[in-house]
């Protein structure tokens, strides 16, 4: 029972913070709301008994990715002091329409479907050794390819962002 109350608190926090990301007037505030939202999703992983992924979420999203985003925001000062430009494009009403329509359709589909597994009382814990076994044995090749992708993408990012001679 206590877990459910806690779950609803976290879910409400995630929704509010995610709305803050897309509706906030200041981009810096958006980035800070994003940290909270990502941390909240990490808490959801703990509710789902996936401690390892919660840890990864806090470290990589809450730490690395948001710091990177904040750094890029500082480097590309979006609003010069004194004048505030519009944050939304002219297509904003259509975006609202599309997002609301998508939400309605998804909600209808989710509530109409009878999902199996409604009768489980408690989720069993996932041991960390099982994650590593599957990740390195069964998914070994995708893992290596993903790490190569990460390396190539980050080298490409360095080359793109580098200050060149004569600039």
């Amino acid at each position, binding site marked *: 029972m206590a*877990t*459910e109350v806690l*779950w609803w608190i976290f*879910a409400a926090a*995630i*929704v509010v913070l*995610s*709305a803050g*990301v*897309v509706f906030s007037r200041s*981009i810096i505030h*958006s980035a800070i709301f*994003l940290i909270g*939202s*990502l941390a909240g*999703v990490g808490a*959801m992983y703990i509710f*789902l008994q*996936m401690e390892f*992924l919660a840890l990864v979420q806090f470290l*990589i*999203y809450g730490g*690395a*990715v948001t710091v*990177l*985003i904040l*750094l*890029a925001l500082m480097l*590309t000062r*979006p609003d010069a002091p004194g004048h505030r430009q519009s*944050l*939304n*494009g002219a297509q904003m009403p259509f*975006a609202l329409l*599309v*997002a*609301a329509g*998508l*939400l309605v359709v*998804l*909600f209808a589909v*989710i*509530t109409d479907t009878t*999902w199996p597994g409604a009768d*489980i009382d*408690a*989720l*069993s814990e*996932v041991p960390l050794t*099982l994650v590593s076994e599957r990740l390195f044995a069964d*998914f070994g090749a995708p893992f290596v390819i*993903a*790490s190569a992708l*990460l390396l190539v*993408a*980050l080298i490409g*990012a360095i080359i*793109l*962002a580098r200050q060149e001679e004569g*600039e």
Partner: protein
Amino acid sequence: MVPLENYLVLSAIIFSLGVYGVLARRNAILILMSIELMLNAVSLNFIAFAAYLDPTKITGAIFAVFVITVAAAEVGLALAIVIRLFRNRATSNVDEAAIMKW
């Protein structure tokens, strides 16, 4: 015990907010943040399905690990492009970078 539907509805709300952000906002970094929201909603879905429906409990988690990896690569690359755009054109609004638009 929270039913599976709650996770799915929560994830749908986050995803829709992300869709709104991607479509409505002008700033490239804000669009990137909205994409992060959408990727997170998808990861949450994967993990909820893994925890509730998968007897081995792990395939969805492996998917989420790969989603996080690719998202990290994407953020690094996209922010490099935004910084380059800002240096060349002094803007980070996507609708002002329309040079390739026919």
